[in-house]
């Protein structure tokens, strides 16, 4: 039995995993990072548009601060998020971006003086203030009050991930590439590491650690068309689920991005609309102002995606061999702007569509994009079900996004969560002693080896890729942007049947070393479990909140549904997950539920809302300064190193 020991095992080498590993390393704990691919190829590299942080340097960003960022995030989540976490996040984001600046990210900077920008389809001149010259600038993104999304052209994720991985290399953090965690080692109460398969040699190795951090990204690939990288298969969440004790949170909260190209599903960043791009229909008409006169193209993502779908249902889509689509028009931004700030978008258009977005409209359609759900954690990042198990980034349901995340808030979450949770991981390691029976490790190793033996021994059985195709189609057709009872019932039933069939998979290629078919055979049953968590969660939630839109229950129902779904898979013999709920306490909210300001407000309110509003009004009347007010309303804890007010140009630490 081969065993690798470390203090911290980080499963995932994207932004969040690397940042957590760096935090633990700096505190003197040795960390090992696992990744399916070289760390710099993780999906974080694909983020284009930017990272939100309330630096308030640029002209259109002035007046921004943590409070505004917090409020945008909570509204964006349709009040589904954990407000403690959203607060911890908003207060730390400026520190995260400044740290990345010292680590080498070439953030685009403010240039003082006049410049032309496109706002609401018109060219306007704004004057960037002299005192901000050379500070980090920001662009507009959907659902934000201020221009808050910091960027490097449209290669933000790339520059962030390269800076982060370079930092990890400087600190000599080992990244074990082409390794796949197959199962967590645990005793029902504490997590002790993972069983890992080497994707080249096929060897199974036990990685034993005091703390284990799941940072494996999202589960977008359970859908047939997704903007996600093909490795975003949710395996980290799945192995947590398979412990039977660690719950997943809000798995039904799945985001669709308005502008992925048709048919490839590759993303064109929200920065296109943030910088002034428009959406047009088959007649060339700009339709978003008809639906959302105030925010137009820059309404929150879930809203824009639904409006686009509605508009296509009215027959206003552009027909194509791949179904209807709409147009994204960035021609009005001009060549100079596109060549400089949207060049990845331009390359994508050239290579995959054979068009030049300087002159041509881009065919787009709402497409699966982001997984709000994931491994449920406390604000410290630790699982409520398994000690020593932590999770960060898109894999986690730390829960700052609730039912809809704002553009630019995800890469921001990855680094902020990595910083914060990394400290709590280090605290945990300070106090942890490894007390572990080798028989426990051997048991998990044997179980995984047994699964592989079973796949190889069978003479006939199911084909993993066929089951996967069927699952992807069900998710697209029945658990998509608009949902309702009947299709969801069918989805749950059909996925349950597929999952049963997946117990009888066969791997025709009987090679133990590098073997893509074996990888699929090991992943598909787990993906089906995740798909069932999504579908069953959606079926049960008889309301509409954020990205979860029920046509048969169009209202947000705070009275009955202001709660987080928790999914568990108690035993391997189960056919479906078990759902439980965690109530969100309005009386503890800094920002009680209200209207997001889109369309007609149909909220069914909770009786506590009015009480909490009154409480807050009374407190606000006392004219406390904003820090004191926040402390009273939402007293959060942050690791020592991350406390402290953030400086802003012109106003200092106000």
């Amino acid at each position, binding site marked *: 039995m081969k065993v690798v020991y470390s203090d911290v095992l980080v499963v995932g080498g994207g932004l969040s995993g690397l940042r957590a590993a760096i935090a633990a390393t700096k505190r003197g704990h040795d960390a090992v990072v696992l990744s399916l691919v070289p760390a710099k190829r993780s999906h974080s590299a694909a983020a284009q548009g930017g990272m939100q942080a309330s630096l308030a340097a640029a002209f259109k960003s002035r007046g921004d601060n943590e409070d505004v960022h917090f409020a945008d995030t909570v509204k964006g989540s349709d009040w589904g998020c954990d407000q403690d976490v959203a607060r911890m996040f908003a207060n730390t984001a400026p520190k995260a971006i400044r740290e990345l600046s010292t680590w080498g990210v*070439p953030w685009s900077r403010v240039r003082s003086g006049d410049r032309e920008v496109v706002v609401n389809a018109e060219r306007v001149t704004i004057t960037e203030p002299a005192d901000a010259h050379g500070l980090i600038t920001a662009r507009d993104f959907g659902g934000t009050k201020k221009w808050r999304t910091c960027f490097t052209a449209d290669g933000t994720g790339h520059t962030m991930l390269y800076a982060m991985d370079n930092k990890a290399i400087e600190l000599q953090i080992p990244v074990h590439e082409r390794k796949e965690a197959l199962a967590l080692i645990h005793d029902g109460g504490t997590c002790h590491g993972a069983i890992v398969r080497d994707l080249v040699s096929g060897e199974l190795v036990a990685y034993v650690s005091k703390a284990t951090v799941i940072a494996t990204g999202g589960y977008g690939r359970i859908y047939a068309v997704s903007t996600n990288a093909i490795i975003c298969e949710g395996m980290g969440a799945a192995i947590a689920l398979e412990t039977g004790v660690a719950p997943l949170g809000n798995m039904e909260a799945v985001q669709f991005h308005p502008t992925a190209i048709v048919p490839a599903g590759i993303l064109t960043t929200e920065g296109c609309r943030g910088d002034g791009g428009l959406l047009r229909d088959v007649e060339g008409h700009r339709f978003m102002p008809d639906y959302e006169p105030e925010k137009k193209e820059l309404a929150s993502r879930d809203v824009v995606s639904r409006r686009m779908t509605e508009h296509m249902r009215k027959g206003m889509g552009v027909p194509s061999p791949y179904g209807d689509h709409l147009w994204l028009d960035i021609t009005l931004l001009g060549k100079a702007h596109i060549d400089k700030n949207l060049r990845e978008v331009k390359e994508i258009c050239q290579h995959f569509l054979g068009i030049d977005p300087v002159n041509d409209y881009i065919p787009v359609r709402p497409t699966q994009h982001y997984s709000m759900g994931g491994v449920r954690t406390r604000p410290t990042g630790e699982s409520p079900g398994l000690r020593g198990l932590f999770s960060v980034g898109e894999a986690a349901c730390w829960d700052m996004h609730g039912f809809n995340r704002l553009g630019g808030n995800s890469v921001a979450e990855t680094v902020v969560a990595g910083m914060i949770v990394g400290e709590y991981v280090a605290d945990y390691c300070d106090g942890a002693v490894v007390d572990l029976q080798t028989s426990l490790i051997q048991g998990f190793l044997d179980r995984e080896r047994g699964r592989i033996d079973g796949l190889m021994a069978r003479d006939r059985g199911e084909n993993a890729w066929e089951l996967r195709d069927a699952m992807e189609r069900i998710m697209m057709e029945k658990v998509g942007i608009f949902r309702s009872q009947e299709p969801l019932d069918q989805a749950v039933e059909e996925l349950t049947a597929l999952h049963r069939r997946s117990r009888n998979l066969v791997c025709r290629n009987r090679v133990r070393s590098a073997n893509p078919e074996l990888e699929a055979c090991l992943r598909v049953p787990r993906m089906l479990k995740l798909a069932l968590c999504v579908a069953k969660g959606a079926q049960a939630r008889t309301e509409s909140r954020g990205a979860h839109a029920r046509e048969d229950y169009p209202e947000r129902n705070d009275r009955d549904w202001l709660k987080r779904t928790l999914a568990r898979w108690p035993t391997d013999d189960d056919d479906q997950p078990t759902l439980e709920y965690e109530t969100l306490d309005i009386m503890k909210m800094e920002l009680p539920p209200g209207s997001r300001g889109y369309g007609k407000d149909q909220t069914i309110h909770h009786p506590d809302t009015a009480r909490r509003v009154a409480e807050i009004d009374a407190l606000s009347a006392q004219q406390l300064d904003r820090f004191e007010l926040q402390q009273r309303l939402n007293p959060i804890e942050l690791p020592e190193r991350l406390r402290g007010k953030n*400086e802003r140009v012109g106003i200092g630490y106000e």
Partner: protein
Amino acid sequence: MSSPRKLKLNVLRYDPRKEGDEPRMVTYELDEAPSMTIFIALNEIRRKQDSSLKFDFVCRAGICGSCGMVINGRPDLACRTLTSQFEDGEITLLPLPAFELIGDLSVDTGKFMRAMSERVESWIHDEEAERRELTVLEEPMDPDTADRIYELDRCIECGCCISACGTARMRPAFLGAAGFMRVARFEADPRDKRTAEGWYDLLGDDDGIFGCMSLMGCEDHCPKDLPHQNRIAYMRRKLVQSR
């Protein structure tokens, strides 16, 4: 609709871990679909014809650098190569040379690039940096400088430049164009306090910039169009001056 064109993919097959296996070319035929990329074609072959076929894709959008391979003689990104651009419908695929072969079209660029990063110390060298308070305003930077760094930071470590470089293929210790580009990126960054001498120690020999024969295979094959020629010439001048 007219019936689709038949594509012929000639793929190098070899599994170094399988006893007795020998490198060989295998031809697969399949129907071309509209907007088909090599990514889509290879996946279809794997699903329908040979489940053991090995290759690497991650982003499938030309962003992550995983899918470098030799496509009809040219190192390039397979995910953003449309099959329609090959007039006779015949495509020959080989793994990138100069990297350790994992199997078929999959090579280990990760190990190579991490070693490159360690060798050129691919991080900001600034003793003050770690002591900076995160609560205070960031150091201002000239906006043009920031843009210039970004231009040089766009390398996606795909390895095409290494495979296209005669020197790199002959001499495994040669740093290669991706390494030069990384040095150029940090050299352009005022936050990095390394001096000309520091760069000389990293680059000033035949495994470094003086081993480069300036044939520009790198520039011709870099999918991100990085300015190899310009930066190699610049650094060579600079290093010569520094001595």
